């Protein structure tokens, strides 16, 4: 870990790992001839091909990561790959503005999905910012308007087009966030108002322990850190976009949900793979994807609250994914990737290497590099205590 991040934030080891992650993500697209990124690589689930079908949802949020990797590694082909994936997502949009759920099967009509639409908006917005091409923002706005129209105004919940019928999960904060990304660019009040309603409804689900029981995939079941981190990140980003001061209810909710988890991580030396509403964890495996996502969420929380404990814990929870990255020559097409869980047969995405685990890993490494650089600068300019 120490060798990865030096005070000037630039080491060959970090670049080696980021390059390997980027190469894995590139292969996940090339296997589909550029038409989306495969959801995962697994010789158990896909003995012959290795790769699953393309996954529109995660291809969408892969786009900003490809741009960042392209910039960091000075590789314009990664930026170009981001553009082609944004074009592909654009072509998936339904007449009503929705974007599809599930894996992509060419020629088949796909059911729209609330969550997946939100995730693809993140890619479209990133492409709009990067290229200035109005098609992307227009598409993102149509998608956000579809989300607004699907929201039940009486409850602030989405009643349809869910991963589990009838379950409007707390990780829909990560739908409100992309909607706010759109409204902040288009000044569309309808979208903003719908996203605030959704966020407020989710805040009502938070219990005294800080957890939000509805953040699991299945109602009443333990939540993977993957969906816990989705929820926390959605709250943090929404708080930033709504522009409320430090007393934002969304930021406070993110803090309340994060602090007990951070304490657990520190006292146990690891983060369990999943938790119930009282923070009883499945300690026998680590959800590597969730660790990477928590690392990023906590670095942002550290920034927004000034509570630097979260930066420290974020760097620690990133250690397990760093150790687990497939870096041996024998790893073949999986080289550079992160598995869903550690051990490999852990409950989250058992024996698979999802593209989003590697995406969130790359995001977290880039965030850590930037945070350490900022902390170093702050010490140099304001660190009177060291002088």
């Amino acid at each position, binding site marked *: 870990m*120490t060798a990865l991040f030096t005070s000037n934030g630039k080491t060959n080891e970090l670049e080696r790992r980021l390059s390997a992650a980027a190469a894995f993500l590139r292969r996940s697209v090339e296997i589909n001839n550029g038409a989306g990124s495969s959801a995962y690589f697994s010789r158990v689930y896909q003995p012959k091909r290795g790769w699953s079908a393309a996954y529109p949802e995660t291809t969408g949020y892969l786009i900003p990561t490809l741009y960042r990797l392209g910039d960091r590694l000075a590789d314009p082909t990664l930026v170009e790959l981001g553009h082609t994936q944004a074009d592909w997502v654009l072509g998936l949009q339904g007449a009503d503005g929705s974007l599809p759920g599930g894996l992509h099967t060419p020629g088949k009509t796909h059911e729209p999905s609330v969550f997946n639409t939100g995730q693809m908006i993140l890619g479209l917005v990133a492409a709009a910012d990067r290229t200035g091409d109005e098609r992307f923002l227009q598409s993102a706005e149509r998608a956000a308007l579809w989300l607004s129209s699907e929201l039940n105004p009486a409850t602030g919940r989405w009643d349809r087009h869910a991963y589990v019928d009838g379950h409007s999960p707390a990780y829909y904060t990560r739908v409100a966030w992309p909607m706010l990304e759109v409204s902040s660019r288009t000044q569309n009040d309808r979208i903003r108002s719908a996203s605030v309603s959704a966020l407020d409804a989710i805040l009502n689900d938070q219990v005294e322990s800080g957890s939000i029981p509805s953040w699991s995939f299945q109602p009443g079941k333990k939540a993977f850190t993957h969906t816990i981190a989705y929820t926390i990140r959605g709250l943090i980003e929404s708080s930033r976009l709504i522009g409320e001061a430090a007393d934002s209810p969304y930021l406070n909710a993110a803090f309340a949900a994060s602090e007990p988890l951070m304490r657990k991580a520190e006292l146990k030396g690891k983060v369990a793979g999943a938790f119930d509403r009282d923070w009883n964890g499945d300690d026998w495996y680590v959800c590597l994807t969730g660790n990477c996502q928590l690392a990023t969420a906590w670095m942002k929380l550290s920034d927004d609250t000034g509570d630097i404990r979260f930066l420290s814990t974020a760097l620690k929870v990133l250690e397990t994914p760093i150790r687990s990255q497939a870096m041996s020559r024998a790893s073949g097409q999986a080289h550079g990737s992160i598995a869903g869980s550690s051990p490999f047969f852990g409950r989250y995405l058992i024996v698979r290497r999802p593209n989003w685990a590697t995406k969130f890993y790359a995001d977290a490494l880039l965030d850590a590099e930037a945070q350490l650089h900022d902390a170093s600068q702050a*010490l*140099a300019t*304001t660190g*009177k*205590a*060291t002088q």
Partner: protein
Amino acid sequence: MRVAVTAGYSRSQHACAVITLLERAGHEVVAVNVVRAFTPKRARGYVRQLGVKKAAARLQQRYQKSAATAEVRPVSDFCATNKITSSSVTDCAEAVGATITVTSNLNADDSLEALRGKDLDLIIYAGGGILRQPLLDIPKIGTLNAHAGPLPDIRGMNSSEWALLKGQVPEITTILVERGVDTGPIVRRHPIDGQPAASIEHLRGLATVASIKAIVADVDHLATNPNLEKQDTTVGRQYFVMAQPLVDLLDGALAKSRQRP
């Protein structure tokens, strides 16, 4: 005052200095309870908190006769200056006529029995892990601890490092131990001399020296000043072991500050 001293391991120079200097200041050190350096539980705790490599280094340090690391050197120099020649807690305890109890846990029955019935005014915490209520109930005044950071802001682990990272000047805060982590009433605040340190390890060493001096001074202070400052625990936060990349950043900043003319 009649006091007992705890020690985290048998070669603790810190505990030796506290025992010796308290005796020289006219206090009665009647009991010394030392925790065995290696127990499986303790080793597991170190690994959880510090990771395998650092935990191994910590345990090695506990076993070896003090190596001349940047952390140990200020304490060794302080002991030499004060003519404290032994680094064996047992030897120091024997020299002052204290009973010696080597235990696996300060809260274990053998440890508590060794402290009960001694009419203790104070227990001086010089290491040995978390203290439970039955032990805290034994002394008349309380259990005195020197916390290496500003309270109530920074409770918990690596407080000097966290203070530095937050742009605060590290200091020692003496408190009477309560059940919560570093939440007890504040006795006094003391500077850490010799700053800026050359490195984090060096800072830890300087903080240890400052804590020895603070403890000895505040045993006297407590005898005449029973009214203590209650902590507002809503102000600060509990901190944990600092991630290594942040320690490295601080080390870099301290090294640079030493290079400045």
